[in-house]
């Protein structure tokens, strides 16, 4: 395991920000930390970065205390973006690279490569404050990994990006993973998490509701999403055995089943042995699971 959090707790005088949190990240994987605002994601990141002390528990990197980790091996993109508004794009990247122990000579090809890949070559001499929000975000992302860290932490890397830039960022993150970088990131947008990471941790009010493999999480719930196109009415559908909830969609219905074992019987009933245009059983999306999990414990 590259990173291991064991029973990590962060208490302030009158509330607990992170409560007994445990998860581990394997070397070279992308791990997602999801949760609502105030769930404790940023506090967790800050504890991993040693910006805040833990009240209890241990954080280890390669079986050693995180305190011993060379800071130059870390990359960090905070939730609220941090760049020097008056500094030129290129200077900014060199400055952050040098700050993490690289020389200008080592950085030069990297800076050129990433500026080109992110379509920022024309802006290299521009002051950061003159860039659009999306471009600023791209500069900040490059700055967070220009020194090729072993471990990269991205706090909400996609917030405020248009779909084109989002895809650009996403493919960059996957390439970094392929080069062996271990990546921990947080997001509100579950589709991003689903697309990027294999394993994740769901946080709610500082507590972990789930930690582990995304596929396992989905399998826990089973294939209980049934999408159908049928002539039956909503009351009729609600009467069917095993159907918990009927959701009207643009081109039909989505039935939430009590269990995936009701599938074959429902197919029999709905098709009545005839041709059926749409009958699709699937796992819940991460978004749906998140709402179920967080909603279920909503007091």
């Amino acid at each position, binding site marked *: 395991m590259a990173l291991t959090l064991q029973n990590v707790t962060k208490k302030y005088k009158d509330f607990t920000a992170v409560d007994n949190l445990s998860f581990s990240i394997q070397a070279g994987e992308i791990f997602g930390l999801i949760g609502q605002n105030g769930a404790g994601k940023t506090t967790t990141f800050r504890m991993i970065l040693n*910006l805040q002390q833990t009240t209890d528990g241990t954080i280890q990197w390669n079986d050693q205390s995180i305190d011993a980790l060379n800071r130059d091996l870390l990359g960090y993109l905070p939730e609220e973006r941090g760049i020097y508004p008056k500094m030129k794009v290129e200077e900014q990247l060199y400055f952050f690279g*040098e700050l993490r122990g690289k020389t200008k000579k080592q950085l030069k090809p990297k800076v050129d490569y990433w500026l080109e890949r992110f379509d920022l070559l024309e802006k290299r001499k521009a002051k950061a404050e003159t860039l659009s929000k999306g471009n600023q975000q791209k500069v900040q992302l490059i700055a967070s990994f220009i020194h090729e860290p072993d471990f990269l932490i991205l706090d909400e890397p996609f917030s405020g990006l248009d779909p084109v830039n989002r895809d650009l960022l996403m493919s960059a993150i996957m390439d970094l993973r392929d080069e062996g970088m271990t990546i921990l990131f947080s997001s509100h947008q579950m589709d991003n998490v689903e697309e990027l990471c294999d394993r994740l941790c769901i946080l709610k009010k500082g507590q972990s509701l789930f930690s582990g493999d995304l596929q396992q999480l989905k399998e826990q719930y089973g294939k209980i999403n049934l999408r159908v196109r049928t002539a039956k009415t909503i009351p009729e559908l609600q009467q069917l055995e095993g159907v918990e909830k009927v959701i009207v969609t643009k081109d039909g219905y989505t039935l939430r089943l009590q269990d995936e074992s009701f599938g074959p019987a429902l197919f029999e009933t709905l098709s009545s042995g005839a041709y059926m245009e749409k009958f699709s059983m699937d796992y819940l999306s991460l978004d749906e699971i998140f709402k179920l999990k967080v909603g279920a414990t909503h007091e």
Partner: protein
Amino acid sequence: MNKTWLLLKQNYLQKVQAKSFIAMTILYIAIILVALNWSSITSFFSSDDDVRIAVIDETKVVGDSFPMDGEISYMPSLMSEAEAKKNVKSGAYDGALFLKDHNGKLQATLMTEEPLSLNHQQSLEALVDSTSKVYRIQQLNLSSKEAESILTASTPIKEVSLQATSSKTTEDKMAGVGISYAIGFLIYLFVITYASMITTDIASEKGSRVLEVLMASVRPNQHLFAKIVSVILVGCTQIILLIAVAYVAINMKGGELQATIQDILSAFSPSYFWFVGAFVILTLLLYVTLGAFLGSLVSKVEEAGQAAMPLTFMMMAGFFTLIYGMTNPDTALVKVLSYVPFTSGMLMPLRYSATDLSVSGVWISLAILLVTLLIVFYATVSMYRRSVLTYSTGGLIEKFKNVMKFTT
């Protein structure tokens, strides 16, 4: 490259290349050059209004007291009043001064078309005043030597202090007041400039969240140290630049000004300048460290001005006490505040040069300043790592409480 050095270099270069810094320095240089050439500038503007006054001396004895080649040219004349009136009206003279005897006293009447300017009026009044005294003495039938000896009689007081330290002469003390005021003013100017510079700087890094990125790679004390040293270096750059400009300008001008300045400076012992140097550096460090702390408390750059306010007030307290102390540096207020570390930098040079304070007093004040600086520095370092990542609303005290609450 060392991280502290990298931060320091980046911050220093950014500051000295900033337009505001360059503009400020040019402004200061302009002020210095204007101040050094003040007499030439004023004479250039006043050269064309040569004032001519006709002196009609009916006593026949005092006319010689009025020089023809001073700021005002006094021309002896035998005109009648009507003629004088005509001449003044026509502009041949700016005025006519009639001197008459009235019961053994000198009576003076000035006739002008337009009133004289204030400084000409004052110099004329002073001249008439002294002439009237001479006239009165002459009326008492004293010889002119006897008269002069009365007028120039003065008794310098020889001061004997029972303390071991050598007592300073009044002239030395006056020079001390002057130069200490200049030093106090410079401290005031530089401390306010650089303390608010660091407050704004840290507040803007905190506001733009760069600080959070930096904190992930450098230790908070490295960052704080780099900030303080770079701001002090920016300050030193400016001071050295200004001193160099002043030095070159004085040497180029040479003559009387150079002699006067050398004369003033020679009135002070080298130890005075060492002490002043120590006070300037330590006071600057103290305020810049406090400025850094206040900057780390606020959440965005817009709040920086408000945050730096307490420092400005403390500086103003010191500066106004200095102005008050110039007339009497021995008052209790000045004495007390010259030991308070936040004001001692401005007041101790004054007391050291303009009173008979012993060197041990200066050392004590310096020691208090140094100890305070170390305490403030230590406290700032320990608070800094917590305050830079805490964002909260409210006043400074509330922010401080939040830092304590959310980070312990």
